[in-house]
């Protein structure tokens, strides 16, 4: 096998980087890098709009057909890079757009195919014309196709005071200022046309006209870029900095900034890469530019592949931990009760030894798990761990109940779905489901649903609707209550009471839940004075109580009491 490394020259920092920024070479270096940056930045700005409008292919097309415009202008006697050439290019760009639209609207050819046909035809025509008139016109094909960034600095300098800029760089700077100015001036028009052309048209803007203007602008930028990077690599400059920026941000203004930064980096690093490997600077710049895109694709903070995998991985870890918690709860491995054997747990959950070890380690760090001294052979839930496990079990069983009663699924279909969703539902949504179901005590299979540990008001204060049969509680207030209730509970009232549909309850009164009617949901309570009251769901939600029975002693949900034998 060939040893490819022999083709790569050794990298020397002083020769390939530092010396280039010192006196004899400083001018050439800075001009080349500046030109690369300007070309890439200007193309990138227009590229942002191309990408957002899904017109990247049209940009590709125009950057090629502009060649034909250049050739025709040169044949007609125009100078290379003169104003005539910019006009010619703008016209060619427009012609390309119009031709594609015409072909697309008058035949069955779809837009992408129309684009492909028009741009290759016009491009080929340009190549052929160069061939025929090569002697008369001073252009050669490889220069036009690939450009030569290194020659930029050798051109006639254009002097402004003590500054000297090579003509192409001066031209490109002017172009950059012009295009930035146009984008700035028409920012809101470009925005509305790109986002919602129909609204733009209804506001009296002309989306098509603006699009044509943009294509003309693009053509002009491409001509400016031609000499240095050539027709083929201009496409990369149009798309890749803008696409990189698109992956990194969700703000249009930031997109312009990031695309400009990407242009600067690709110009600088591309230049040095080209010097080191002795390759085309334009090619090296585009290589760097595409590497930046790859980095954004992989490591972008929100949409990057790595960030996404990390999120998935963390969710998987959490799911495993939470399954472990619930498994322990089902086996009754709680606090002082006998602990569960870890390896048996791992087998029943289908986890590898490492996953189990990691889950146990993380759960212990959160204080949810108690482990025996001998190498974590035995584990049990701590008090906080049991609360967490009950929270999960509650979400699981409530969701099962919801699927059966509201969605109408068969009982044997609901477990797998609930198994997945219990890890994803927010506490608020779980409480909403609970309320919609009328705060049930058991799921459709008759399994008990753990109580809510989410306080409705201040810590320890719940709605009366969350009480279960046998619970004792003291009334402490009325939450989001109708006016007639709050009126009765003012501080000035020595004996605050409320009276609704024959219901008389007093603040501070103790009560005990003696019965529950599921449909419609009614709570029957016995007050301290021995009288009983029936409280409908909507009022039970509003009456706030403090439970007198501490949750620790009665809320353990052990579905298999025999689990204690572990």
């Amino acid at each position, binding site marked *: 096998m060939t040893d490819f490394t022999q083709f790569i020259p050794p990298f020397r920092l002083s020769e390939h980087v530092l010396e280039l920024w010192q006196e004899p070479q400083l001018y050439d270096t800075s001009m080349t890098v500046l030109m690369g940056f300007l070309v890439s930045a200007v193309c990138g700005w227009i590229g942002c709009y191309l990408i957002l409008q899904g017109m990247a292919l049209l940009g590709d097309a125009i950057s090629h057909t502009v060649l034909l415009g250049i050739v025709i202008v040169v044949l007609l006697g125009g100078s290379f890079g003169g104003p005539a050439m910019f006009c010619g290019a703008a016209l060619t760009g427009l012609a390309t757009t119009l031709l594609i639209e015409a072909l697309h609207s008058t035949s069955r050819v779809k837009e992408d195919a129309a684009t492909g046909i028009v741009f290759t035809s016009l491009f080929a025509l340009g190549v052929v014309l160069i061939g025929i008139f090569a002697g008369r016109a001073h252009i050669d094909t490889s220069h036009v196709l690939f450009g030569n960034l290194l020659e930029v600095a050798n051109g006639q300098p254009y002097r402004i005071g003590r500054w000297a800029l090579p003509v192409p760089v001066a031209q490109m700077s002017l172009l950059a200022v012009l295009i930035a100015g146009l984008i700035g001036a028409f920012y809101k028009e470009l*925005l*509305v046309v790109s*986002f*919602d052309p129909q609204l733009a*048209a*209804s*506001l*009296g803007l002309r989306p098509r006209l603006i699009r044509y203007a943009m294509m003309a602008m693009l053509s002009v930028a491409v001509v400016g870029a031609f000499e240095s990077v050539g027709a083929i690599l201009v496409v990369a400059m149009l798309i890749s900095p803008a696409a990189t920026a698109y992956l990194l941000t*969700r703000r249009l203004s930031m997109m312009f900034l990031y695309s400009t930064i990407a242009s600067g980096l690709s110009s600088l690093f591309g230049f040095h890469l080209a010097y080191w490997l002795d390759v085309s600077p334009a090619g090296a710049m585009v290589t760097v530019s595409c590497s930046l895109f790859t980095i954004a694709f992989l490591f972008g903070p929100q949409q990057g592949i790595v960030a996404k995998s990390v999120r998935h991985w963390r969710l998987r870890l959490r799911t495993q931990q939470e399954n472990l918690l619930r498994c322990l709860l089902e086996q009754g491995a709680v606090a002082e009760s006998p602990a569960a054997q870890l390896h048996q747990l791992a087998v029943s959950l289908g986890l590898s030894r490492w996953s189990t070890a990691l889950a146990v380690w993380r759960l212990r760090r959160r204080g949810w798990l108690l482990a025996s001294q001998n190498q974590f052979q035995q584990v049990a839930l701590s008090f906080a761990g049991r609360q967490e496990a009950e929270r999960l079990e509650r979400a699981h069983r409530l969701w099962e109940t919801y699927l059966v009663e509201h969605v109408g699924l068969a009982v044997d279909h609901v477990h797998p779905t609930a198994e997945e969703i219990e890890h994803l539902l927010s506490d608020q949504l779980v409480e909403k489901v609970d309320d919609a179901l009328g705060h049930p005590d058991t799921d459709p299979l008759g399994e008990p649903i753990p109580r809510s540990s989410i306080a409705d008001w201040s810590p320890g204060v719940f709605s009366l609707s969350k009480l279960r049969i046998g619970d004792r509680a003291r009334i402490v207030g009325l939450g989001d209550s109708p006016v007639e209730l709050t009126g009765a509970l003012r501080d000035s009232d020595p004996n605050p009471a409320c009276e609704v549909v024959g219901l008389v309850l007093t603040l501070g009164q103790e009560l005990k839940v003696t019965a529950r009617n599921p449909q419609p949901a009614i709570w029957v309570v016995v007050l301290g004075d021995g009288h009983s009251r029936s409280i409908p769901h909507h009022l039970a939600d509003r009456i706030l109580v403090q439970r007198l029975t501490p949750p620790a002693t009665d809320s353990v949900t052990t579905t298999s009491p025999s689990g204690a034998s572990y």
Partner: protein
Amino acid sequence: MSTTAVPPNPPPIEVHDLTVSYDKKPVLWNIDVSFPEGQIIGIIGPNGAGKSTLIKSIMGLMPAESGWVKVYGQPLARQRRLVGYVPQRESVDWDFPVTVRDVVLMGTYGKLGLFRRPGKAERELCDHCLMQVGMAAFADRQIANLSGGQRQRVFLARALAQDSRIYLMDEPFVGVDAATEAAIIELLRTLKRQNRTLLVVHHDLQTAPEYFDSMLMLNMRLVAFGPTQEVFTTPLLQKTYGGRLTILSEAAEQVAGTRR
């Protein structure tokens, strides 16, 4: 030359002999209708009846083959500020890198004209409009993270920011949650109380009689237009929905075939 007498109270929208083709195929034939002011008007009809086409061509977004549209007695081009358009929600790319506020601000562009950027006054107006649709808390959110109902509310807030006399809305109730639907109809009624005219493309017959003061029943041609209790009747509904007029469709196909 002769001076055409403009009636003292021209209707918000007058459509005269409007024929519209889509891809050379006629989809609306000779529509004649004049909409009254200060009403919520439903445009109903089966799929492919030309409901969206009608409001698009009123808006000048689709060229008419014949006929004209007048807004308060004048051509639309002179009256654009008076007309607000709410396109179908799915007609835009919701991955676009802008915030909710940016989208609502677009509603003020018409009044701002060229070169003027939205300033503090526009921002305040936009926040007020967002509040009216219950989306004030979302002003700085990226539009990509919104639900279907929230997106529709953003579009409505943008329409409010346009502050038009007439609104043309393309299927604002499609695919929104019940709360949003209620919020939208409430908003439409508020606009109506301000004597604005609302044209709403709608496809749900169940809610139609409750929502609209008048209805335009459309199926390639105008089947009926009038107050809801007069036109929302079984015979007219059958006429609108009872299959296409086969000869009309066939003629349209043939016209398209020879023109292509």
